[in-house]
């Protein structure tokens, strides 16, 4: 388990959900955890939305001062350096989507490389229309690496179509995840899915990571 874990990928691929779940998982293992919302492109639906859950679990959250406010000012606070400079805690970094989101990572990269105890994870969702193939995903991967100046070390297959996702939908993407692994030379370390779907998947594929998803006020119940 590396000290710094970064989640990056195409925007809307599910980075935030995985980052929050991974931070909670680390905490359950008794680790001291800090999570950073490094998203400078997305105006709504971000790590900061999970403040209550994270605080209750005793996880420190660092996010842009103006996140979820009315100010469109994508500035990162100075405390963000703590995630790469204070080596006493486990850090989970939620990077903004695409290369545009990953530019913000660049300034922390030298510290991450110097310490050299990190996992840079590419989050893939093959149900996103601009990354439906391994080749398209690899293109985004390379763009992010160029922007953030940090090479990926692993892949998570988070293919889903929101709350309608079935186990079959996930299984249908396993081949593409393997192909992405082949052409990038990186391992697929997890396949992620919402807890119920994950239970179904466990008997069929290895390394399934169940996720708890946030309920939103506009999800129609019943």
């Amino acid at each position, binding site marked *: 388990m590396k000290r710094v874990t970064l989640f990056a990928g195409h925007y*809307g691929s599910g980075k935030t959900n995985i980052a929050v779940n991974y931070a909670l998982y680390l905490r359950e293992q008794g680790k001291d955890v800090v999570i950073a919302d490094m998203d400078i492109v*997305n*105006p*709504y*639906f971000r790590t900061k939305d999970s403040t209550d859950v994270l605080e209750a679990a005793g996880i420190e959250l660092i996010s842009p001062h103006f996140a979820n*406010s*009315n*100010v*469109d000012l994508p500035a990162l606070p100075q405390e963000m350096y703590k995630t790469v400079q204070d080596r006493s805690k486990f850090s989970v970094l939620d990077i903004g989507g695409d290369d*545009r989101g990953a530019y913000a990572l660049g300034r922390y990269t030298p510290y991450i490389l110097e310490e050299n105890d990190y996992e840079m994870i590419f989050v893939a*969702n093959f*149900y*996103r*229309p*601009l990354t*439906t193939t391994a080749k398209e995903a690899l293109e985004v991967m390379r763009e992010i690496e160029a922007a953030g100046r940090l090479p990926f070390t692993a892949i998570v297959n988070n293919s*889903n*179509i*929101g709350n*309608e996702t079935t186990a079959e939908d996930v299984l249908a993407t396993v081949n593409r995840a393997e192909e992405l692994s082949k052409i990038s030379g990186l391992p697929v370390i997890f396949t992620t899915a919402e807890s119920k779907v994950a239970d179904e998947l466990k008997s069929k594929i290895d390394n399934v990571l169940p996720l708890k998803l946030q309920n*939103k*006020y*506009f999800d*129609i*119940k*019943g």
Partner: protein
Amino acid sequence: MAEKVLMKGNEAIAEAAIRAGCMHYFGYPITPQTEIAAYMAKRMPKIGGVFLQAESEIAAINMVYGVAGTGLRVMTSSSSPGVSLKGEGISYLAGSDLPALIVNVQRGGPGLGGIQPSQSDYFQATRGGGHGDYHLIVMAPASVQEMADMTAKCFDLSDKYRVPAMILADGTLGQMMEPVVLPEPTDYKPNKPWAVTGTECKRKHNIINSLYLKPEQLEQTNFERYERYKAIEENEPLWEEFMMEDAEVCVAAFGIAARVSKNAIMAARAEGIKVGMIRPITLWPFPKKPFKAAADKCKAFISVELSMGQMIEDVQLATECKRPVTLCNRTGGMIPSPEEVLEAIKKAAGGNK
């Protein structure tokens, strides 16, 4: 059936527009609709279309005017303050009878306001927004699927009546992600004899213009345009009725407010309150018919809005003020909670269930 994909509302609009044959996009970035421009910037160069980030919203809408004049499908998108800037150009489009799509992913106002979701451009959208006698066809999606479907529908209606169309969404719908089946791509071939496409010395040249030197002529043109508006009001209103069969209280809500209201209505039904909803899908033409009918059997109406009471006026007009209409609202980027709507329903039901 086509495969489902996971998309943001903003992306769904952009992809649906391309599939409807819109190969020209002009815009200027503004939160919370920037993904439309970003998607177009990525896709258009790959398919031989045009993406152009203009120097301002005013420039963008006038570029739309230019392409619309050639008969091709064209669009722009923005959010509230940016749409105000486009106001002059939208009036010129209407005055020149040009079809085009304008997308407004609303944020809180007035002024610079904020970046959180809002519905407070209802008056601007349904009353015209710019100067002069005119209307836009205005559609209000309530899901990512509808963001895609209504984009195609807006292009069709806009071409059919030569009236600019608007999608009036809000920041939440623009930013939220949902499964969507994208409409099949259409092989769009313009059939617009009025367009400026070159005469080849075979016909008299066409003129696209909103200036009339004689007032009699301008009046006549406006009269003719209003005949088309009348046809739109007769033929095109769309709405959804939800649990209205035995409803004694009627909620009126569109877009994201309708989604919140649905949850509140189901909670109220669980407590035995007979409540339903009419969700306007076209905001102009406003669906007067179902409201007029509901006024005969419902005792009270509630307008649920992310604004200070705008659609409520159309509900009062459509129900001919026969029943009380109350307002349940938040503004400035805030969204009414299902609990707040439930409270308003209980109040309107007045205890006599």
